[in-house]
């Protein structure tokens, strides 16, 4: 009879595991999570490698901005794996540069939105009362806005530079994090160890950063991971409308936007960059979701 499936060793391992290690083990036990991480690493390495090469003054396989009108609109071949665009530029080279832009936008925009969201949520949840009311009603109001259009408006007003784009995306997308952090704070601040820290006379900000935030870190991290593809898709949409990072800098969105008129002859111009946006976003979404599942104590 299989009554004793638990061996003493297994029990020992389970009890000694830290929460973080437990989440990681469960995350890594999910095949979808592993595939997603591999895809993300692949994008990160190509983006990082391209940026590094570029900084050293090299390009691979070609200079992304090198035009060659003799070689325009070539389909994929051994010379140009992903074909060339209407100016004869190598699509693969441009996409590699686009990867750098997309990942940069994703990471920085999330950093901005996380920073604002955590601070607002922490203040609202920790202090409560009128502060909480004012902040949370502002969040309620902000989420009514048509997110993408609000971002487009702001980018159009301020001008579409990389820095403006990431800051604006960050400024508009922190509401979810704020609500989450506030909720975590409301729960955690009532726990014994936070109460005792207060009784011991610790400073508010110390309690927030030392005691409360670390305990809310898992769901915050999940939101962050899920925020990256949101930002990537937003930037791609802006690029497509002509308000993303500006040419000649290649982005996944503007390769498609530039090729609008040649779409029927040059399918590779829309297919590959769109697919890159799609796969990169999908990998982040799936990884974020797997992380959420892994940190969910219920399942």
């Amino acid at each position, binding site marked *: 009879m*299989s*009554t004793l*499936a*638990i061996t003493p060793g297994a*029990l020992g391992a389970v009890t000694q595991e830290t929460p973080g290690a437990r989440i990681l083990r*469960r995350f890594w036990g999910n095949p979808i999570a592993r595939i997603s991480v591999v895809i993300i690493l692949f994008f990160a390495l190509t983006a990082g490698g391209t940026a590094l090469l570029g900084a050293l003054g090299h390009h691979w396989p070609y200079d992304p901005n090198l035009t060659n009108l003799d070689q325009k609109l070539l389909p994929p071949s051994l010379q140009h794996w992903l074909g060339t665009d209407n100016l004869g530029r190598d699509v693969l080279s441009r996409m590699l540069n686009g990867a750098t832009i997309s990942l940069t936008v994703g990471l920085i925009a999330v950093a901005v939105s996380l920073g604002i969201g955590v601070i607002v949520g922490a203040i609202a949840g920790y202090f409560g009362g009128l502060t909480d009311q004012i902040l949370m009603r502002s969040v309620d109001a902000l989420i009514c806005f048509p997110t993408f259009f609000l971002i487009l408006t702001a980018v159009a007003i301020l001008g579409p530079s990389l820095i403006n784009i990431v800051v604006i995306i960050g400024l508009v997308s922190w509401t979810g994090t704020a609500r989450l952090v506030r909720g975590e704070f409301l729960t955690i601040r009532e726990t014994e160890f936070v109460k005792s820290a207060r009784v011991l006379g610790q400073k508010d900000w110390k309690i927030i950063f030392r005691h409360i935030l670390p305990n809310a870190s898992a769901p915050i991290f999940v939101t962050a991971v899920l925020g990256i593809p949101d930002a990537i898709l937003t930037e791609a949409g802006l690029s497509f409308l002509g308000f993303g990072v500006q040419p000649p800098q290649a982005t996944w969105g503007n390769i498609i936007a530039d090729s609008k008129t040649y779409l029927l002859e040059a399918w590779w111009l829309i297919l590959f960059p769109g697919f890159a946006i799609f796969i990169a976003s999908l990998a982040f979404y799936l990884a974020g979701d797997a992380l959420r599942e892994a940190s969910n104590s219920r399942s």
Partner: protein
Amino acid sequence: MMLEIKDLKIGFSSESGITPALHGVSLSLERGETLAIVGESGSGKSVTALAITRLLPTPPAVYQGGEILFEGRDLLKVSDAELRRVRGGKIAYIFQEPSTSLNPVYTIRSQIAEMIELHRPDVPKSTADIDAEIIHWLDAVGINEPARRLHDYPHQLSGGMQQRVMIAMALSARPDLLIADEPTTALDVTIQAQILNKLRDLQQELGMAVLLITHNFAIIPGLAKNVAVMYRGKVVEHGNTEQILRDPQHPYTKALIACIPRLGDKRRRLQTIESIN
């Protein structure tokens, strides 16, 4: 034998493997009789009760072995469609917590009507006939002015009334076996006695068998002819109630019986329960 459980083994899977909950439970129950299952919290009473019609969610539950013979068929082997005919129609349940066991968004009428429409082909499908049948059962379980309660939502009733509705719902299908899992634990002591009384009267009237689960040995005499004592996932003693009361074999049973306050004990709660007998 109407119900015969043989060597039932059930475990719950988790990350660290399968934790056993039942280590080979065997029980039997005759048509029309009452069997009480008694045991401390966590001994596996509810798991046994739910397993009979495979109500344990899988995962996490794992049916690891044994048989559940009901009217000669092994319920662990019948098809899902067949099982649904047994559930409610032949074996009905009442649970411990009436306030959460009724669906908060549907009226009393709607929840009982489901049972009648499903298991009572003899009741015509018209609203009036179904209403009449529901009112009959609400009346039978002792609800005042049942016609006015039909369109109430569960939250509009007290706990005792909710449990009466649960009983009316279970009985409305005229089951052969009623499984009552601690039906009065969540209720006021005064109401506990009323409900148990009502259950016993209705059982005799309808001639159905009852599997009464409790952790309180004191309520068993007078309610159940036979008793099964469960301890840590096993049935440690199974037999005639009076005989076991007189001459318990297992040390755990002895301990349980020793805890029963004798007649004349000062505590009101138990006097009330004794007064049933």
